[in-house]
């Protein structure tokens, strides 16, 4: 085998998932002779300290990448975002109420769950 052929280690992109409620996040890349070694090396090259629940290695050539303009969103799309509805606060005040946020609901629900759990414990 010639020297140039030796240089043909594949590039693998590495993704780690820190907990089951997190997505896999890209952390970098490495070169390796096989996907098996790529996986084993990725563990120590990217997770020496941090813990994780899952690790992906993907051959770079299997990733398609967008061009810059592909993601362009130039015009107003506030109609589908929270910040497009700031007037609700003013409207609710007219009815002597406050806007409800998703965070409040989540907090309220979790509070309830916590109560349920503590009741079960008892």
């Amino acid at each position: 085998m010639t020297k140039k052929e030796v240089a043909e280690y594949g590039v693998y992109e590495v993704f780690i998932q820190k907990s089951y409620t997190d997505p896999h996040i890209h952390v970098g890349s490495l070169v390796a002779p096989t996907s098996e070694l790529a996986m084993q090396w990725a563990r120590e090259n990217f997770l020496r300290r941090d813990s994780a629940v899952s690790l992906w290695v993907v051959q770079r050539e299997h990733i398609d990448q967008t061009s810059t303009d592909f993601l362009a969103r130039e015009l107003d799309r506030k109609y589908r975002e929270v910040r497009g509805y700031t007037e609700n606060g003013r409207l609710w005040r007219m009815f002597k109420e406050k806007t409800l946020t998703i965070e409040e609901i989540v907090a309220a629900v979790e509070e309830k769950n916590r109560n349920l759990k503590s009741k079960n414990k008892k």
Partner: protein
Amino acid sequence: MNQEEMFMKRIKQGEKIEATDWMPDEYRQLLIKLIHMHAVSEIMGAYPEKEWVPKAPSLRRKLAIMAKVQDEMGHGQLLLRIVEDLVYPLGKKREDLIEDIYYHRVKFHNVFHMEARTWADAGLIGWLVDGAAIINQAALLSTSYGPYARVLKRICAEESFHMQHGENIILTLAMGTAKQKQMLQDSLNYWWESLLFFFGPKEVTPAAERMIHYRIRTLTNEQLRQKFFDKYIPRIHSIGLTIPDPHLKYDTEKKCWVYTEPDWKKFSEIVKKNNGPKSRERIELRRQAHEGGRWVRQAMLCKPVG
């Protein structure tokens, strides 16, 4: 607006440039030069401390210095990957980037050409050489090249462990026996000149000017050296060490440290010609590792039979 002007507009707006974006050749070349040297310095930087891994004087130190040297190799890996993507359009790969070391086509930091003679030297490298490197790297965090900025973020996070590790060795020696304290002072005397060399000469070279133009880096060598003095001189004094420079003082008017210029000819001799005390020996180690491991890399690529 032509491509070049568009590119500079992005730079001036503080945007990050990505590997797949169009970039001027000069920008690519400057990045390759800087990051290749950075990567190789990490890899060659493993050797002075590696010599002390087998001799670390306690189990905890043994583990810590292994982890530290491992991190240096890991940083080398991260940085090499950045360079590999930059040189890919030029037809170069990992193999070439490593060979460049022993064909003397890439430089590495002066400090890694020096001998680590004692355990105190190993500690001092961890404390002050890493300290200097951290200042250098922290100043690069705002670099215009996205992949480099991301890797530096991770490197800096790991360097904070190196700092603690180095300081712990030094503080232990500083509180130790008279012999240990002497060993520490001796180590500072030996390394001080190298620490001054570390940030490079005062004058801003044309290449450095271009790097600042492209916001690859934002501070000059001398600005970085002064920041290093600010942080470390008071600490060196506080543990009872004497800095081997009778002219060193803080100029309150100019708000900067005044110091005796090291011999820059010696610096060139070490870095440009690889003529430091350990240059040849360590480059040879890297050559052996790479050439000696070729049969492994070749075999690992063979498709299994059946």
